[in-house]
């Protein structure tokens, strides 16, 4: 590295060699060690500007801004809400009721006309409804 290149890098990246491109840092360090008479004033001038730039403090976020951003963040998957459980229960009860009404209608309206196998089949929706009554666990806990 020659002194001109050293000056160019200091003029761009400042006096802190850690901010210089990695591929040129070692050569710069060697030149700084070998020619402090040339590199010292260059780094000194760059450091003066670095210090002045550092005199502009960074703003601190307000608590309100922090909270507002946090509140807009993704939510974890919602646990089952009670109303959903109740809605499921209501649906199941409704189906069970409809099934029971069907059974009653079958028994009352045409008991003699229905073969016994059909009467047996009419109870199946009731089982379906009973299964639905067990459904709330499908809404999960987590």
């Amino acid at each position, binding site marked *: 590295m020659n002194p001109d290149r050293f000056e*160019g890098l200091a003029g*761009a990246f400042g006096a802190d060699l850690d901010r210089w491109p990695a591929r040129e840092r070692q050569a710069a360090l060697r030149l700084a060690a070998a020619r402090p008479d040339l590199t010292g004033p260059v780094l000194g001038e760059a450091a003066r500007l670095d210090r*002045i*730039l550092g005199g502009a403090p960074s703003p*601190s976020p*307000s608590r309100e*801004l*922090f909270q507002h*951003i946090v509140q807009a963040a993704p939510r974890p998957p919602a646990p089952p809400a009670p109303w959903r459980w109740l809605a499921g229960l209501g649906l199941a009860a409704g189906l069970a009721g409809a099934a029971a009404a069907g059974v009653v209608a079958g028994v009352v309206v045409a008991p003699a006309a229905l073969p016994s196998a059909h009467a047996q089949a009419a109870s199946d929706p009731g089982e379906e409804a009973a299964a639905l009554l067990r459904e709330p666990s499908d809404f999960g806990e987590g």
Partner: protein
Amino acid sequence: MTARGADLDDDLVVRAGRGDPAAIRDLVARKLPRVLSLARRMLGDPGDAEDVAQETFFKAWKFAPRWRPGQARFDTWLHRVALNLCYDRLRRRVRATHELPDLADPGPGPDRNLQARDVGRRVDASLRALPPRQREAIVLCHYQELTNIEAAAAMRVSVEALESLLSRARRSLRTALADLGAAP
């Protein structure tokens, strides 16, 4: 940013994407000061800077559930998002005024005893007087402490182009702040 810091970012983003409240708070605590600082130095106006910081995180929250660790550095991605939002606002200002804000340097003369706050104001004003790309280069490298590779990636330029922007920016700043001792 160190590789360890990038790994921690990845972990926090993935967990935040799943709605983990602790990760969300940690991530905001780590990144909000950086995003706000970037926006404040790019835009000057504190209210605009807060708006940009907020919008940046809203975009991050949308993206977090799909974040894939190792694809890119979250910090660089976040800077890019914030910078785009800053440029949107700068363009709107240009449309409103037909020119980029050319803020007069309100700095006092060299004989005045400057307080730290005054120095900060002078520096801020000098930064705002720079062309936006030069200002961006200085803000990313000097204040945000991105490496030159990260800053070049965030700006979508080569390291050589970044160096050129930085050189011109620092030359202007040295002249503008000469009375503060920036130049010998």
